[in-house]
């Protein structure tokens, strides 16, 4: 009997190949950072002939999610189309199995945020009110004030640096 299903060693290689491709999918709002560095990619698994990618939204109902879903499917299409892969489908699951938190952002992701003019969020599960002042992404000063906990999107807050007098945004820790 022949089967299209990938064997275990082939599965591991497929998952590695998929993860490498996912690292090239960027956040639609902040294209300097990949969805992997932002910590959005949770599980990548092969279930029979289906490659399943679990995505954790930063915020529930984030409007960028549908763009991310489409980009993931597009990036993984060559793997699916490869007859040797044994894959028939790519499925993107939007999951809350684990809450996305800022601690999931990689070091490289944090550097990419700063380079784009965003203060990275605190790395712990700290919530607003207790959070220390954001670090200015332009001059590195901590002499900053929270101007508005709510910003241009649900995942961003607005700050002002009293040292270099620049307004800036911070990626919120939800």
């Amino acid at each position, binding site marked *: 009997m022949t089967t299209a299903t990938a064997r275990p060693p082939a599965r591991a290689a497929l998952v590695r190949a998929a993860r490498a491709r996912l690292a090239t999918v960027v956040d639609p709002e902040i294209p300097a950072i990949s969805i992997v560095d932002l910590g959005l990619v949770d599980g990548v698994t092969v279930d029979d*002939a289906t490659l399943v990618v679990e995505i954790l939204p930063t*915020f*529930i109902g984030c409007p960028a999610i549908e763009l991310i879903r489409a980009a993931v499917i597009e990036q993984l299409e060559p793997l699916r189309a490869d007859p040797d892969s044994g894959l028939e489908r790519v499925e993107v699951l939007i999951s809350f*199995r684990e809450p996305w938190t800022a601690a999931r952002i990689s070091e490289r992701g944090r550097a990419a945020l700063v380079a784009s003019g965003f203060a990275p969020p605190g790395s712990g599960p700290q*919530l607003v009110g207790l959070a220390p002042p954001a670090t200015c992404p332009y001059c590195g000063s901590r002499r900053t004030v929270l101007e508005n906990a709510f*910003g241009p999107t649900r995942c961003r807050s607005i700050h002002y640096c009293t040292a270099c007098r620049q307004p800036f945004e911070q990626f919120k820790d*939800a």
Partner: protein
Amino acid sequence: MTAAGPAHPIVEAGLERSLAELLLALADDDFVLGFADSEWTGIAPHLEEDVAMSSLAQDELAHAAAWYGLLAQLTGGDADRVAYDRPSTAVRHSRLVDHGRGDWARTMTRRWLYDTANAVRIEGLASSTCRPLADIAVKVRREEAYHLAHGQAWVERLAQAGGESRRRLDDALALVGPDAPSVLAPLESEAALQAAGILPTGSAELLERWTARVEPVLGRIGLGLPPAAPAALDPAMARSGHGPDFEALWAELTSVRRLDPEAAW
């Protein structure tokens, strides 16, 4: 296991209607409040609050969409149909959310009372035996930390400003305060939900926790929590008997949908 196998059931057989009642209460509260608060977009007292209220309203609508989505999975329906295609009498939001947005003091007072009650409710649901429900509750609670800080800051600011601000705050608390416990009022299926661990904490305990949080905040600004209106704690009335403010809101918020229910967005 085959890829075409049935999805895992969200809840064990026999509890679907009970879970649906809980999900609809959660969804309708967020939906109606989110829509009412979105009316401030463009006319909030200042620009920063315009941004904040728009963001808060979007949060509520996003959370409502997550609850409706789970409900649609449970009943095999479509989230938009569940939310929009029904008469106003079938909407199960609480009496607190039924009031119109009123002035800024009423909006802020209602927001804070709702956010504190909703926080207690979703913290309780974080350990629900219904895993998809618990997962959403954990995420919603994290996002709403921002709501709690915003609402409390405004209630304190209005109280401490004195004069007209204080008078408007007093009026708002007298009007919406007695209805605040309706958010936590027992559901008709509370006993079944508790027995199954879907609702780990009952409404009496949730009300105690909520009172213990809001009374000290009000006490510090010389205010007290008004006694609950009898209807706010009655399972048959806490989420029915909608008033004219809500009827107008519902007509408005379903108007686009009614133009063409089959339109794709």
